[in-house]
């Protein structure tokens, strides 16, 4: 069997082992993570809207053309996003194809890069991260971290699961290095950053 022959071949040589290093260093630090996060997200083609408290998001959503024009909307954020598509009722994720706007919770976000961690382990259809035309993400200010090093201190995978860092909308520069937003996934990503820093 190839498994045994590959492992046996690998065990025939013993490259030097420098040991497993601790991930330690003097990492970037931001006094104002929220401002840095918003700037990084914009650099990634996304948009950050700061709101003092969660209920305010409803009004901000109404201000988004992508949200107003979406005929079908999905939401994984309790009480927000005005959904008319229920993920739990769909037997086939392909039926998310014409969803215009989806609102999802981000459990943490990274100031250095504008990336938001969406844990979809409990979602019936993780396609809701990728198929809708436009995405809204809800992140709390206390869930902002400086860099990926702190992010991975918080990320856990118990059992079966799926999580994704989303940094702005889908994009490509495959034609003559010209940046085009909206390759396959969401054409826009709006992050609602909740709370004061």
């Amino acid at each position, binding site marked *: *069997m190839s498994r045994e022959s590959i492992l046996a071949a690998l065990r025939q040589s013993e490259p030097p082992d420098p040991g497993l290093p601790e991930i330690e260093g003097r990492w*970037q630090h931001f006094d104002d993570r929220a401002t840095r996060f918003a700037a990084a997200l914009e650099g*990634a083609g996304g948009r950050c809207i700061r709101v003092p408290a969660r209920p305010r998001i409803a009004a901000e959503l109404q201000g988004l053309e992508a949200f107003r024009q979406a005929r079908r909307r999905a939401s994984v954020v309790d009480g927000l996003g005005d959904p008319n598509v229920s993920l739990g009722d769909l037997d086939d994720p*392909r039926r998310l194809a014409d969803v215009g706007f989806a609102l999802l919770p981000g459990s943490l976000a990274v100031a250095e890069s504008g990336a938001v961690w969406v844990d979809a382990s409990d979602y019936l259809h993780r*396609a809701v991260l990728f198929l809708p035309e436009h995405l809204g993400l809800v992140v709390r200010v206390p869930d902002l971290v400086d860099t990926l090093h702190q992010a991975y201190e918080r990320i856990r995978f118990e*059992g079966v699961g799926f999580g994704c860092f989303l*940094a702005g909308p*889908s994009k490509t520069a*495959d034609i003559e*290095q010209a940046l085009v937003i909206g390759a396959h996934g969401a054409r826009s990503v709006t992050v609602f950053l909740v709370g004061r820093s």
Partner: protein
Amino acid sequence: MTHAERAALFAAEPGRSAWHDEALWSVRQRRDEAVRALPEWGRLVELAGQLKAHTLARLPDYLEQFESEATARGAVVHWAKDAAEHNRIVLGLLEERRVERVAKSKSMLTEECGLNPYLEARGIEVIDTDLGERIVQLRNEAPSHIVLPAIHLKRTEIGALFHEHLGTPAGESEPAALVAAARQDLRRRFLSAQAGITGVNFGIAETGGIVVCTNEGNADLGTSLPPLHIASMGIEKLIPRLADLSVFLRLLARSATGQPITAYTSHFHGPRPDAELHIVLVDNGRSALRAREAVREALHCIRCGACMNTCPVFRYGGGHAYGATIPGPIGSVLEPAKHPQHHASLPFACSGCGACGGVCPVGIDLPQQLQSLRAESGPQRGAMGLRAMSFAMRGRRRYALATGVMRLAQRLLPRLVIERMARGWTRDRALPQAARESFRSWWQKQERGR
């Protein structure tokens, strides 16, 4: 054909080389800006190199750990000793489920294994979904770059291609319009695909998870709709712990395109509800490479492409000149190390400038590896001239005599004769005129004049 012969074909079209050089240099500059903005870059490179060396040293143990963790989370792990076995395993999985249409995301490993033609010959439609890969697939070409597969093409060429295949208006070459057409076409294909195939950027021994990075979200769409996800993973893609990702992800996109992170970084741990995840671990020459000290470090590569964007030979000669799955400096180490008979000219596709070693985010000493591969291949054409030069430079009198003769020859012999002697060096540039007098004799005169 050798690398030099293929590069000459690429360069034959006036302006093509300079245009290609400029495109890649702009990517290199974006990388430089991103790196300069990160004070801890050096520390990250150091950690990445150590993590890779450690994983490689303990690879069989980590592979077993990965297998047992991935299995515990519901994935099925397969082992393939070579490309043929990899392709058989993938075909078997697809045939058992009567799959006829596959959405594939970018994977240099499946390119290496020749998976597409293998499956197509057996009646399975494989659609590459990364835009650049889709473009080269429609042209029946291989990618010319591992991160920017269609970097060798101009927008007008892509416009003509899309006009033919996707029905865009004739003459349309605006990138936004072309991307919109591709999005529409590929959406339809995503929705009808019965399986998704992806590569793997990182496999995590600790959790049995796999991580895939894209900017387009194509790997994610390709795997979140159909009931089968097959992930092809080279055995060197392993890292020990989840937290190690923080090091590699901070390096990868910055080195590749100058972005702090890709738009999508998906972490798969086991299959979706009611779906299957199969991970195919592929050796295909990697264990042999690992046993060779001189080239072992090349297995640390995280496929960012920075060495290609930096390399003057790549920038002027194009990626197809390498005639190999992985082009550029890293390909010039990996490919001849695996298949010396096919890729003998690649270690010589090098000006010796050393720039590739300076930008590698995992600290692979590419210049040293290329040099050792050149040394292994024995004496080369032109070695006589080099030996003569080495002899002349080893003594003051010899040097003075040799340069004196050359100076005289350049003045007395017809230019054509001189250029013949200089061989390829004068094809695209003039031989500089030697000074009438040597520095040494000029200096002596100055001293005497004081």
